[in-house]
C-alpha cells in the first residue's frame, strides 16, 4: 500500500523521522518497503503489507500506529469525529445474516452539495494514484485510506423505500456497477438492496442505481463490516477486486465502523460548508460485538523461543508500547478460579462462542477456555482436546485451577481429539469438564442446571462420571497477560505475542548460536544415487540439463495452464532431451565439439504415478561418426554406469536423428541398490566459473584455416598465435580438427568461430578478421596458409 509521508505526519505533533530513516525503521521492525517515490511536495512510501498485518495496516492510521510504536513519537490522531447536532434516523436497516455482515451502520445527510473536490483532497488522492470523482466519493476514499474502513455513499433520493436490506442475492438478479459493467448474481452473494433491487455488491462494489452525482442532495452513508471469506468468494466469482474487497477479504474489525463513519460525516459536513446539512443519528446493526482477546506469555517461554534474556519488565515495556495493556498474573491457576467465581449463574448455552458470547453465556468447555484465556493461557476450545492437552494428575493431587473431565452420557461423548493433535484416541470418552475450585468443589457451566454453578464434587451427580483430572501446561508460572486491541486480529496466541516482542525489540541484537552438531539420522538413497549418477556422467563428459516439467500433451494435465504449449506434465524426459540435442548440435562449433553428451534427472508424471527418471543422451555430427557412433558411446556409457551402480537398469531407447536417448526409472533402480553409508563421495563440486557470461543472441560465423608450419612448431603456439590475431570477436579458442604431416612440415587445421554480442556479423566483417589472421601467419618465417 502506498502511503503519503505528509499524511502520516498529520498523526503527530512531533516530527517523525525523515523518509529514509522511517524506511529503515519500518524495514527492520515491521514491513518490507517496496519503493519510495519523491513527488513535488511529498514522499510516497510503498509498504508491502502482507496478510498478517492487512487487518490493521492497510491505512495511514495503521502505519502511523507502527511509527508511534517504533519511534517513540506520540500518536495524536487528528480529531475528525462529527460532534454537531443530529436528527432522528429516517432510515432502517435489515441484515439477513449477521455472520456474513457482523455490523452495518448507516445514516443520512440531507442538504449536501456535490461538486468537484477541493484541491487538497484531489492532490492527496491523486498522489496515491486515485482518480478524483466528486467531493462525496472522494471523501469516502479518503477515509478508507485514512482508517482502512471501506465506506459507501448512496443517493438517498434514488433509493426505493426507507429500508436498507443486507441480503443474499437471488439467482439471476442483476446490477449495473459504477464502472458500467453488468453483473448477474449466481445467488447467495451478499448485496445491499432497497426494497426493489440491489444497490451494491456488499463489500465489493457499488451500483449505478443510487450513484451519487451533481444532482444529489441527500446521501445515505454506509460503514459496515462483512465476512472475509464471503467477500473473497464473491470478489472471485465476479472477478472484481477493489480497495474495499481487499480490506474485507483480509478481515477487519467491526469496531472500526463507527470511527470511520464519524470521520466521514464530519468531513462531508465540513466540506459542504453550510449549516444546513442535517445529519441523522446512525442506525447500527451490531448484534455480536467481539470481546477483546487476552493473550499471555511467560518470561521463560518468551526467552526460550527467541533465544533472549529479557526480563519481565522488558516484556511489559514492549507490550505497553504496543498498547497491549499488559498485567502480571503471578498465579495463573488462582486467577482462573477468580475469573470463574465471577461468572457464577451465567447462562448455559451449548456451542457458546468464547469470542462473541463469553462472558454472557457459556458451555462447559467455553467456560474453561474463557477462564484460562483471562489468565493468559491458551487452551483448546473443546473438552476432549482439553483433556488430551493437559497433564494427567491423580484426583488427590487436584489443586485450584485444575480441570476434571467426565463421561456423563448426557452430551455427545468424544472418543478422539478434534483440534489438538487431531485424531488422538481418547478411549475413556469425554462429554463434560469442570474447573476444580478447591476444598472438593467444582465450578462448571452445567447443562442440567442451565447456568454456571459451584458445587461439591462428591454431592454432584457427576461424581461417578469422573474420567480423569488434568493440569494445564503453563498454569504454575507467572504470566504477562495482555489485552489485544480489536484491530490486531493477527495476535491470537502466545507465539504471536512473542513475535511482537521480538520484532519490536529488533532482531539486530539477537544472539547467533549454532546448534550443537549431531549425527544425521538417516541416508536418503534416492538423493545419494542421483548424485552418484551425476558424478559418474560428468566424469565421462556428460553435461547436466534441467528442462521444463511442462509439455503440450501428457497423462496429467494442468487445470489452469499458463499457455497452450504448457498444459500437461511430462510423462518422460526423452522428448525434451531430444530437442536439447538438436539445439546443442546446431551450436556445436560454438561449443567446440562434434559430440553432444547430456543427461537429465527429474520427475516425470505417468498416469497416477510420479517418479524420478534419468535420461542419458548422445548425438554426434556426421564428422564425428553420426548416429551410429553416438549409439556406441551411449551403450558404453550406460554399461559403465551400471557397473558403477552395481546393478542393471531397465530403460528404454528413444531415437534421435543424430543419436539416441536412454531413459530409466531412477526410483525403481534405487530399490535394487544397496544402502549407502554416507554422502562423502557424491557432494564434491569443482566450480570453474567465477562470473557467468550470457550467450550472445546473435548468430555465429564459422571459418576454417590450415597453416603449414615446421614440424618443430608446437600446435599450442600456432593456436595461440591465431587467437591473438583473430580479434575480439573470436568466440572461443581455435579448435584443431585436423593435422597432416609432409616433408618436415605439418599442417594444422583450425576452426574459428566469430560472434558479436551487439549485432549479426556480415561476411565482409568476418573476411576482414580472417585477412588479418592470414596476413599475420604469412609474415611468420616458415609459416604458410594452406
Amino acid at each position, binding site marked *: 500500500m502506498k502511503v503519503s509521508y505528509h499524511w502520516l505526519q498529520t498523526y503527530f505533533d512531533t516530527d517523525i523521522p525523515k523518509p529514509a530513516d522511517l524506511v529503515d525503521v519500518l524495514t527492520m521492525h515491521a514491513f*518490507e518497503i517496496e519503493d519510495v517515490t519523491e513527488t513535488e511536495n511529498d514522499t510516497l512510501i510503498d509498504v508491502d503489507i*502482507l*496478510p498478517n498485518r*492487512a487487518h490493521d495496516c492497510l491505512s495511514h492510521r495503521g502505519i502511523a500506529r507502527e511509527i508511534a510504536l517504533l519511534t517513540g513519537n506520540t500518536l495524536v490522531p487528528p480529531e475528525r469525529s462529527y460532534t454537531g447536532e443530529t436528527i432522528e434516523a429516517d432510515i432502517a436497516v435489515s441484515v439477513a445474516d449477521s455472520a456474513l455482515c457482523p455490523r452495518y451502520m448507516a445514516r443520512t445527510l440531507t442538504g449536501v452539495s456535490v461538486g468537484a473536490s477541493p484541491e487538497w483532497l484531489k492532490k492527496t488522492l491523486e498522489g496515491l494514484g486515485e482518480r478524483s470523482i466528486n467531493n462525496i466519493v472522494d471523501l469516502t476514499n479518503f477515509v478508507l485510506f485514512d482508517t482502512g474502513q471501506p465506506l459507501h455513499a448512496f443517493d438517498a433520493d434514488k433509493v426505493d423505500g426507507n429500508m436498507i436490506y443486507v441480503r443474499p442475492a437471488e439467482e439471476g438478479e442483476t446490477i449495473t456497477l459504477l464502472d458500467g459493467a453488468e453483473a448477474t448474481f449466481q445467488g447467495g452473494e451478499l448485496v445491499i438492496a432497497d426494497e426493489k433491487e440491489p444497490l451494491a455488491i456488499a463489500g465489493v462494489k457499488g451500483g449505478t442505481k443510487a450513484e451519487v452525482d451533481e444532482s444529489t442532495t441527500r446521501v445515505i452513508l454506509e460503514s459496515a463490516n462483512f465476512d472475509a471469506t464471503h467477500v*473473497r468468494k464473491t470478489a472471485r466469482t465476479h472477478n472484481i477486486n477493489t480497495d474495499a474487497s481487499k480490506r474485507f477479504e*483480509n478481515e477487519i474489525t467491526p469496531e472500526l465502523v463507527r470511527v470511520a463513519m464519524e470521520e466521514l460525516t464530519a468531513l462531508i459536513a465540513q466540506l459542504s460548508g453550510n449549516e444546513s446539512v442535517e445529519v441523522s443519528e446512525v442506525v447500527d446493526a451490531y448484534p455480536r460485538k467481539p470481546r477483546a482477546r487476552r493473550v499471555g506469555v511467560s518470561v521463560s517461554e518468551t526467552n*526460550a*523461543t*527467541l533465544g533472549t534474556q529479557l526480563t519481565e519488565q522488558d516484556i511489559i515495556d514492549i507490550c505497553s508500547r504496543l498498547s497491549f495493556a499488559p498485567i502480571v498474573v503471578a498465579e495463573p491457576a488462582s486467577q482462573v478460579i477468580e475469573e470463574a467465581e465471577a461468572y457464577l449463574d451465567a447462562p448455559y448455552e451449548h456451542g457458546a462462542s468464547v469470542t462473541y458470547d463469553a462472558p454472557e453465556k457459556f458451555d462447559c468447555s467455553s467456560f474453561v477456555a474463557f477462564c484460562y484465556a483471562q489468565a493468559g493461557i491458551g487452551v483448546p476450545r473443546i473438552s476432549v482436546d482439553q483433556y488430551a492437552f493437559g497433564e494427567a494428575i491423580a484426583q488427590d493431587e487436584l489443586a485450584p485451577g485444575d480441570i476434571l473431565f467426565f463421561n456423563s452420557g448426557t452430551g455427545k461423548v468424544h472418543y478422539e481429539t478434534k483440534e489438538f493433535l*487431531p485424531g488422538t484416541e481418547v478411549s475413556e470418552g469425554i462429554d463434560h469438564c469442570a474447573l476444580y475450585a478447591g476444598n472438593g468443589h467444582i465450578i462448571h457451566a452445567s447443562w442440567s442446571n442451565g447456568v454456571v454453578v459451584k458445587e461439591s464434587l462428591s454431592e454432584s451427580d457427576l461424581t461417578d462420571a469422573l474420567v480423569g483430572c488434568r493440569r494445564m501446561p503453563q498454569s504454575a508460572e507467572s504470566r504477562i497477560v495482555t489485552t489485544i486491541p480489536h484491530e490486531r486480529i493477527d495476535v491470537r496466541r502466545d*507465539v504471536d505475542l*512473542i*513475535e511482537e516482542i*521480538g*520484532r519490536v525489540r529488533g*532482531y*539486530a541484537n*539477537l*544472539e547467533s*548460536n*549454532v*546448534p550443537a*552438531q*549431531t549425527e544425521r539420522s538417516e541416508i*536418503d538413497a534416492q*538423493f545419494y544415487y542421483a548424485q552418484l549418477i551425476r558424478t559418474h*556422467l*560428468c*566424469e565421462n*563428459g*556428460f*553435461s*547436466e*540439463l534441467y528442462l*521444463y*516439467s511442462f509439455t503440450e500433451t501428457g497423462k*496429467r494435465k494442468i*487445470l489452469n495452464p499458463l499457455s497452450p504449449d504448457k498444459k500437461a506434465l511430462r510423462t518422460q524426459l526423452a522428448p525434451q*532431451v531430444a530437442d*536439447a540435442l538438436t539445439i*546443442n548440435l546446431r*551450436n556445436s562449433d560454438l*561449443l567446440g565439439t*562434434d*559430440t553432444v*553428451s*547430456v543427461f537429465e534427472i*527429474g*520427475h516425470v508424471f505417468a498416469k497416477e504415478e*510420479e517418479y524420478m527418471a534419468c535420461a542419458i543422451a548422445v548425438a554426434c555430427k556426421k564428422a*564425428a*561418426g553420426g548416429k551410429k557412433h553416438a549409439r556406441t558411446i551411449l551403450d558404453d556409457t550406460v554399461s559403465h554406469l551400471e557397473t558403477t551402480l552395481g546393478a542393471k537398469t531397465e530403460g528404454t531407447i528413444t531415437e534421435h536423428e543424430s543419436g539416441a536417448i536412454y531413459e530409466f526409472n531412477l526410483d525403481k533402480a534405487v530399490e535394487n541398490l544397496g544402502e549407502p553409508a554416507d*554422502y562423502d563421495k557424491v*557432494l*564434491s*563440486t569443482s*566450480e*570453474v566459473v567465477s*562470473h557467468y557470461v550470457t550467450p550472445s543472441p546473435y548468430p555465429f560465423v564459422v571459418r576454417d584455416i590450415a597453416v603449414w608450419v615446421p614440424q618443430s612448431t608446437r600446435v599450442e603456439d600456432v593456436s595461440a598465435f591465431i587467437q591473438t590475431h583473430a580479434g575480439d570477436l573470436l568466440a572461443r579458442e581455435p579448435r584443431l580438427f*585436423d593435422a597432416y604431416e609432409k616433408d618436415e612440415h605439418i599442417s594444422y587445421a583450425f576452426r574459428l568461430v566469430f560472434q558479436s554480442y551487439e549485432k549479426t556479423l556480415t561476411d565482409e566483417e568476418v573476411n576482414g578478421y580472417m585477412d588479418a589472421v592470414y596476413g599475420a601467419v604469412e609474415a611468420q618465417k616458415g609459416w604458410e596458409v594452406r
Partner: protein
Amino acid sequence: MVDEQGERAESMEAGQSGHLHPISILIREITQIFDELGFSVAHGPEIESEFYNFDALNFPPDHPSRDLQDTFWIKGERGNVLRTQTSPIQVRYMETHEPPFRLIASGRTFRNEATDATHDVQFYQCEGLLVDDRTSLAELKGTLDHFLKRLFGDDVETRLRPGFFPFVEPGVEVDMRCMRCSSDGCSACKQSGWIEVLGAGMVHPNVLNASGVDWRKWRGFAFGIGLDRLAMLRWGIDDIRSLYAGDLRVINQF
C-alpha cells in the same frame, strides 16, 4: 578422411569432463554444509495434495495468504496441486518421524505467474527444518549465519528482519549485503544495499499440530531458500529461464 578427422577430434576431447547444472552445484554445497550439522536429506513429490501444500502449513482455506503463491491445479484431481514450495516435505517428514530431527530437502517448485527474466513457472527451493526441545530464533540465526558464511565466505554480512510466512511464527527474512554493488545500491538490491536470500522462522504450532508433533514439548525452526535466485546472484546469471533452456552454452560454463 572423415572418420580419421572424427577420431582425432574425439581423441582431442577425450578426458574432458561434463558439467553439473548450477542448481545441482548449489544443492550439493548446501547439502554438504547441513549434512555436517546432522541434517538428514529428505524429498517429496512435485504433485502435492492441498493438505500438504497449504492446509497443514497453516494457510487457511479461502484465505488471502494463498494468493501469495499462484498455484497450478491438476485437472480432474480435486485438491491436487503442483507444489508451490518445498515445505510440504517438512510435514511429510514430521508425520513419519519422531522428534528430535533435522532435515534438509531440495526440489523443484512451481508458480503460475507470468514469466520474465526473474520469474519462471518452475524454480528450485531448498528447505531446512530442525525440531528439538530447546531450539530458538537465536539458533536459527546462528545456523543461517554459519550456512551463508560457508557458502559465500566469512566476510558475508547478514541481517534478520520481520517477515510473514503462514507456517512460521515469528517469521523472518534474511538479507545479505549486496555483492554486486557492495551496498552502494544497484538494480539487484533495489537500491537498498541488501538482498533478500532466505525466508525463515520458528515453526508455527499449528504446523506441528497438523503434522502430529506435540508442540507442548517440541519447538522447531525452518528456513527456505530460492536456489535459482541464489545462482543468479552468485554467478551473475541475468535470466532465470536460461537455467531451463537445455543450452550447453550456459551449462558448460559451470
